[in-house]
């Protein structure tokens, strides 16, 4: 267990250094303009992170989600310039269904599709992050009540590029009786929606972790009324609010990962996404208030984080939709069963 954590920490550290070296405001602007950073992707992929969540029996690193969480958080801290998170969870989903993990970047289609008797997929999803540049799409589909994990060649799918807040290359995808390259019944494992929602929760935590020190530094440096603005209680309240939301998002992301590891239902994922999504909203608002007008300029790096916060809170089910699902499920049982359901394992 701790050995796995060491592997994850090492991987996260390598990724952190690599991204710190290559990803700055200008590099992100190029990526957001639609140019895939192929050289950076190759270097990231060479770290071996794509198989972090793949079992050792399938030649992966065999990390648990709770261990790999730190890798996903580092990715979020650097504004996720490459589809590493999607590729990691896509590989995990394929491996869990006994399918081989191909080369090339993966994108996740979180909306469930239908699978017909001839193994053809139909349905739509939008926006799918990284779809325009991915080699493969990982898809969940249902046939007669059974769930399948499918590998689809991106070239076989109808794509319409969409603009998103986050400006990660994204597309609306359309499956008109598309034949999967490979498919297998989904195991007991988490489905693409839950996996992606958890990834987004952890990325939100990472993004807030990057925003917080920017704000602290600005509060210490920016002078008004003859002193650093951090001397003002009003600014201190905002910094504290941002720190609280950052902490809550971090704990939420870790919680979601642990619930996935435990093989429990979707509720843990919902809890993580609800709390991280709310943290994205409040945290981004506090950060912008601290920075004032400079923070909304194109030349400042803050928006490269806050636009992603607004993107990620809504992707893979917004915090509002997950809250509705969790609330409906909570309301299906008597009030007296709420407390036991929260503290007695293993349900949540």
């Amino acid at each position, binding site marked *: 267990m701790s050995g796995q954590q060491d592997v994850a920490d090492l991987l996260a550290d390598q990724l952190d250094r690599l991204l*710190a070296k290559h990803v700055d405001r200008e590099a992100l602007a190029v990526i957001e303009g639609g140019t895939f950073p192929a050289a950076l992707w190759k270097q990231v992929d060479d770290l071996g992170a794509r198989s972090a969540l793949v079992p050792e029996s399938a030649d992966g690193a065999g990390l648990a989600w709770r261990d790999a969480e730190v890798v996903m958080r580092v990715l979020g801290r650097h504004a996720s310039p490459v589809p590493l998170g999607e590729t990691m969870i896509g590989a995990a989903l394929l491996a869990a269904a006994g399918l081989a993990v191909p080369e090339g970047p993966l994108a996740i289609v979180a909306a469930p599709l239908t699978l017909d008797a001839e193994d053809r997929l139909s349905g739509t999803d939008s926006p799918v992050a990284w779809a325009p540049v991915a080699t493969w799409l990982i898809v969940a589909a249902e046939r007669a009540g059974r769930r399948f994990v499918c590998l689809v060649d991106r070239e076989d799918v109808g794509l319409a590029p969409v603009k998103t807040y986050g400006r990660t290359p994204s597309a609306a995808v359309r499956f008109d009786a598309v034949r999967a390259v490979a498919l297998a019944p989904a195991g007991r494992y988490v489905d693409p929606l839950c996996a992606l929602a958890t990834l987004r929760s952890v990325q939100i935590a990472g993004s807030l972790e990057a925003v917080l020190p920017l704000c602290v530094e600005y509060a210490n440096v920016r002078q008004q009324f003859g002193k650093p603005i951090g001397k003002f209680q009003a600014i201190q309240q905002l910094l504290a609010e941002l720190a609280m939301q950052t902490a809550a998002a971090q*704990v939420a992301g870790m919680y979601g990962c642990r619930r996935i590891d435990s093989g429990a239902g979707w509720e843990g994922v919902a*809890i993580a996404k609800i709390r991280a999504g709310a943290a994205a909203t409040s945290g981004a608002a506090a950060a912008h208030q601290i920075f004032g007008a400079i923070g909304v300029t194109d030349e400042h790096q803050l928006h490269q984080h806050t636009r992603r916060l607004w993107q990620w809170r809504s992707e893979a089910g917004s915090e509002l939709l997950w809250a*509705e*699902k969790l609330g409906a499920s909570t309301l299906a049982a008597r009030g007296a069963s709420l407390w036991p359901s929260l503290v007695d394992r293993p349900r949540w």
Partner: protein
Amino acid sequence: MLCRIVNTASRFQAFEIPAECAPLRREVRAFLAEASQAWSGWEVGHSWTGFDREFTREIARRGWIGMTWPTCYGGHQRSPIERYVVIEELLAAGSPVGAHWVADRQSGPLLLRVGTDSQKERFLPAMARGEAAFCIGLSEPGAGSDLASLRSRATHVDGGWRLSGRKIWTTYAQHCDFMIGLFRSGGPAEVDRHRGLSQFLIDLKSSGIEIRPIRDLLGESHFNEITFDEVFLPEDQLIGREGEGWAQVNAELAFERSGPDRYLSSFPLLPLTIDALRATGAPDRLSARRIGESVANMVILREMSLSVLARLEAGETPLQEAALTKVLGTDFEQRLPEVVRELTDAVPAFSLDDRLAAMLGYLTQAAPTFSLRGGTNEIMCGIIARGLGVR
């Protein structure tokens, strides 16, 4: 570079309560299922500010006070995690634990840490039996958020100390047996500030003490103003070291700020609200969203609280994480009564037979204190900001 090097990271590690605690949890829950039958919605709303000596003695009889203390002092030598299980069950049910809350959470642990052997022998077993109720004397009429400006004075005299001055907002002083009070034993507040403060253990029956209950907006009297008029204390009533009072008080704070009492005060509303919504037939989307948010919020707060517990148990002092947890937790417990209003069209009137309305009536009016007690959230946020490295 996108990430500059300013270390603002808070550290929260996952911690799960081990399965071995399940029988203890069941035992507490079974007891509460019986005991809670008699409590009205108004009473349950009081939660850890409900003062009931009889209930406290029963809790003590079951071994649930001083759980982590050594058996030689009347404790039960159980783990902090077992204690956490017991107190979160008690609070989730809104139990009236006020008659032992301060002793169990703060005063007992303080004595264990810095008290003399004779202080421990005299007070800890009485606390653990539920027979010594403690309060904490910190705030003064002129020293609230700016606690270090306090002026109540302890003067060294032959054979002991003389206390004079006033304390205010002291919860349940009128019912308690003892106070642990912070007094100035060194130079004046203008000069010494955090230095020169000492903690004393005060028998509230001592001559020269006058306790005046302060009626609050609910028509109840939970806090008090206390006048010390040349109150004599024997030498051995000093706690810890003279002049170390500020540091001793601060060492307690991570415990005080991160417990389940900082996010569960309004929790008993939630099950009743769920039942009220179910009774309307199909709950609407807004109701589902608010309930879902509340549940998620609570689960993550509990995760944060448990994470702090694990670090405290490992001998660390995660003050920053505890402060973050307290502000988020008290926000949540203040928000919950408003969520109930949003979803149930509750009217601002209550009769004893409407449990939810009575509980909501109490909690709506008590909620302002949640972000005041134990340090206002504004003071907490200043502490957090300094912890982040704001210069």
